[in-house]
């Protein structure tokens, strides 16, 4: 997994609440059996004017010029600023795959759906929770200033705005460690093989029908 520690990235504001995973990556793209290549179809229904299907040449499709991700001033954004309950809906990991493939590294929102939040960390994306009033202030700042960037420091758990304002954020110690070091969860868990086997033996003795 990609390591992450520091980012000085352009911010794009997506000003709606409850952005669901169907919106992040519409279901027709879930037919892929691959993990990569979802970026051009991130937010497909909002980004393009036509109906997208897998296998289309996305560079030839008509863009919805009003959609925020298509505005020239946000081109190359690596930080997605969002509203409440971002990533609600299905468990599809294609959503973080699409965001990552699009070029995002950090998401900032007041809240996230649980499964999506989890899935982000497994794919080198850092979802940051900030209080709603702070997110609101960031929305205003991004909209008011062309080329608005934020510095995100995972080690220090801090976001620094161009005017020097610092926003501290919380992150689970285990997930932070995995992101900083690009660690693979499975490898870590397999260090506990002995404990898993011991648990399994005890569990099997207590509830043999689970192993029938």
């Amino acid at each position, binding site marked *: 997994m990609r390591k992450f520690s520091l980012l000085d990235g352009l911010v794009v504001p997506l*000003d*709606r*609440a*409850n952005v*669901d995973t*169907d*919106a992040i990556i*519409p*279901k*027709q793209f*879930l*037919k*892929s*059996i*691959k*993990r990569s290549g979802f970026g051009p179809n991130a937010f497909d*229904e909002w980004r393009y004017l036509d*109906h997208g299907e*897998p*296998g289309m040449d996305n560079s030839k499709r008509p863009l919805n010029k009003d959609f925020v991700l298509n505005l020239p001033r946000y081109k190359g954004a690596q930080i997605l600023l969002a*509203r*409440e*309950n971002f990533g*609600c*809906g*299905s*468990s*599809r*990991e294609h959503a*973080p795959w699409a965001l990552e493939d699009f070029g995002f590294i950090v998401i900032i929102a007041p*809240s*996230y*759906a*649980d*499964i999506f939040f*989890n*899935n982000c960390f*497994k*794919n080198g994306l850092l979802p940051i929770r900030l209080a709603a009033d702070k997110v609101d202030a960031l929305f205003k700042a991004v909209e008011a200033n062309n080329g608005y960037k934020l510095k995100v420091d995972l080690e220090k758990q801090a976001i620094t705005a161009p005017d020097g304002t610092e926003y501290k954020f919380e992150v*689970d*110690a*285990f997930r932070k460690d995995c992101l900083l070091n690009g660690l693979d*969860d*499975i490898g*870590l*868990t*397999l260090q*506990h093989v002995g*404990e*898993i086997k011991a*648990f*399994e033996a005890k*569990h099997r003795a207590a*509830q*043999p*029908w*689970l*192993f*029938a």
Partner: protein
Amino acid sequence: MSTKTLYDKLWDSHVVQQDADGTALIYIDRQLVHEVTSPQAFEGLKLAQRKPWRTASMLAVPDHNVPTTNRAAGIADPISRLQVETLDANCVEYGVVEFKMNDIRQGIVHVIGPEQGATLPGMTVVCGDSHTSTHGAFAALAHGIGTSEVEHVMATQCLVAKKSKAMLVKVEGALGKGVTAKDIALAVIGKIGTAGGTGYAIEFAGSAIRALSMEGRMTLCNMAIEAGARAGMVAADDTTIAYVKGRPFAPKGGDWDKAVTYWKTLHSDAGAKFDATVELDAAQIKPQVTWGTSPEMVVAVDGCVPDPASASDAVKRGDWERALAYMGLKANTPITEIKIDKVFIGSCTNGRIEDMRAAAAVAKGKKVAANVKLAMVVPGSGLVKQQAEQEGLDKILIAAGFEWRDPGCSMCLAMNDDRLEPGERCAATSNRNFEGRQGQGGRTHLVSPEMAAAAAIAGHFVDVSKE
């Protein structure tokens, strides 16, 4: 701690090891697998040259991409077909039990798990699908996971997790005529919002819940995720045990008695502490209809489409305005004046035999309204379909003008050919009314099977509690 919640009991009995910060390894008893979220997990396993830890804990089925008509002809869309074939090939390679597309036992993953007895009380159940919360109806700890986690469970039989907070949703009293588990679910979401359960595991309790059948409890737990909760659950009782008994994967002989003794302990102890409690009076719940693009945008059928001017804040007002524009609705329109174009009865929320019976009971001797272009009933599994046909439900529905399809997810998410055209309005028994969920530009209203069938007959929403 002497008194425990059901969630505490399920959690504690599966902790393999726990770090000081609460990050734990949880042992997983059952992993259900479908074609959409598993190919990358199998591929990951292969690339790392790992083997599944315990193949017998897995049960696989294709459901999202399968056609609901003329199945003998196979899957027309080559990309969908490849996904299903990839599942078949992976199951053969790793020796995973799979109910293939033409197996009578095939169906929606959350319908077949319980139907086969592959979901049992006291289990931890995962699947790369958010509606895995369904299985919590059996006093199981069940939730959806992402594909990386699917691979993780395959390789280690464990999930890295932190314990959630516990929420009690208590529904006391008797449901009125025509009011169902679906209406309880929508009423709960209307009350706490789609993020109200985020960070919680919800236990549904109270006399109205105990009075529900297992199928009703599954409908309710299925929708826990729409309230933001990864897991929903109901205590085990005689209803649970009677449902499980005799199913193919259920314990037998001496194991059965031992299991039942254990299952009877799967309830929250008196006085157990919850981090949050929500109470509803069953008698006050009316048939529900969603009007917008989030399940929390819901009102009783005798209500009206709300006016964004009355929204509590600016973000919400914007959401409501956008939802009304997408849905093609005007504020203050009575729900019963909303005309529909299509009807979809099915999904892992309402695709079980009782749902088929409810739809047939409403449709019996009537005709689908002329303005309804398509009314389809899609059983949740091949066995549900077979049972319905033995009861003659298919004939009743077909005579009324409904289409009777083969089992699968179908128009719940429109990954196969069943979908809405832009602007079409659908009364659906599924669980999500997001923009484009049932087809780009499609407009979904979530309702119970009774309400969907009644809307098909009338051509617009009607209050089934008044029929």
